[in-house]
């Protein structure tokens, strides 16, 4: 349950993720079929695909919020996750971050100010978190995640509900974190966002991994028919 990650497993280095034969079904409906891949450290890996492809479920399996019906997940390093709608407690911004730190057993409260600086919101430390705008709340959620200094940061469509300015702010923070060495694994249905942020693309369609490639390769020379259709803007059935 606790998505802390294991120690080095089977010859893996820090910040690595491996999925083997992942299957998942809910309510009798199969959502993921036999998904296998591995993700290494480096630039952000973006998981893309049409709605209903199983992206969110896959992310939750990787972060161990869900247990697979079959197959397994191996990972190293500490993890943190952001959701499409930011989930903040009914307390101040600083208290939210402090809560996460105390859950992780981290006593260094200096990280709170540090994290708020990183997301550009030091002036909001004392404000009730839930009274902030959607974009500000998501940045607070980011600050909370980054304060934990995770090796892997999962983000599930983090800007889907945000306006362009907030989206830009969040993307900037994510890019900076990636540049610092945090492994970003993110889902999105926005192709343009994928182009902006991805170092690597994984295309999911109807619960199967269709293609995994470095971003440049994927966008210029997609290998699969689905990828070509998706990039053309066709609706994948």
């Amino acid at each position, binding site marked *: 349950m606790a998505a802390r990650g294991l120690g080095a497993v089977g010859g893996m280095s820090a910040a690595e993720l491996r999925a083997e034969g992942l299957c998942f079904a809910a309510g009798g409906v199969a959502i993921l079929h036999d998904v296998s891949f591995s993700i290494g450290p480096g630039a952000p890996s973006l998981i893309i695909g049409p709605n209903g492809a199983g992206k969110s479920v896959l992310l939750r399996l990787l972060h161990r*919020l869900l247990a697979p019906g079959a197959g397994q997940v191996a990972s190293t390093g500490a993890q943190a996750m952001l959701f499409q709608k930011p989930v903040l407690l*009914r*307390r101040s911004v600083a208290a939210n971050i402090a*809560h*996460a730190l105390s*859950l*992780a057993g981290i006593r260094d409260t200096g990280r709170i100010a540090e994290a708020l600086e990183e997301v550009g919101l030091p002036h909001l430390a004392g404000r009730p*978190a839930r009274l902030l705008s959607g974009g500000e709340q998501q940045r607070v959620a980011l600050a909370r995640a980054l304060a934990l200094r995770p090796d892997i940061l999962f983000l599930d469509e983090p800007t889907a509900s945000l306006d362009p300015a907030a989206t830009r702010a969040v993307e900037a923070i994510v890019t900076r974190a990636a540049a610092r060495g945090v492994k970003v694994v993110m889902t999105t249905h926005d192709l343009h966002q994928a182009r902006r942020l991805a170092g690597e693309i994984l295309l999911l369609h109807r619960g199967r991994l269709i293609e995994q490639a470095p971003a440049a390769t994927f966008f210029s020379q997609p290998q699969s028919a689905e990828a070509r259709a998706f990039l053309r803007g066709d609706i994948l059935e």
Partner: protein
Amino acid sequence: MNDLTSALQQGVSLILSGDAALWAIITLSLSVSLSATLIAACIGLPLGALLAVTRFPGRQWLLVAMNALMGLPPVVAGLVIYILLSRSGPLGSLGLLFTPGAMIIAQAVLITPILAALTRQVLEGLWEEYAEQLRSLGSGPWRAVGTLLRDGRFALLTVLLAGFGRASAEVGAVMVVGGNIEGFTRVMTTAIALETSKGDLPLALALGMVLMTIVLGVNAAAQWLREASARWAG
């Protein structure tokens, strides 16, 4: 109608005159119901929190029982506790029958299911909202209980007010286990019952007015809390 009006007038002047017997009854009522609410909270809130976040075999039955107990008739609760506290009963040596202590126990028994059921409702809603994020941060259901209780503090205060209101308004339990002893276990509701049966309407009306004021005050406080919570914490 004239009788009623004049009785009302007399009632008001009784209140304003600060009649000692009247105020003794009022303060006893408040302290009994407050104590009962606090005790019920110590049991009901954690119980409700547990039910909100955990799943175990038989949980459904426990929920059914709790909801049924919410409708426990006060006089039945009073009867059971009377039998327990009687000198001829298992807990007789405590010497609690016909004392305010027995009344507190009876009311606490009455409102614990209410507090537990309402707490479960409040916290289950919160847990649904928070579960994924809290688990991501490493807080499983048990560790989360403290967080949920704190986050739901305004809603839980409203729950406490509901319990207090119910305790203040009941007469069956405190009549049976308290004995309505003048100057010792006579509270507003039992006094109203007695004075009405004696045909002494002014005093009954005076007490009724005070009781209604308290009930109104409790509801107003709950409403203010709801608004303050939205304003301050979102």
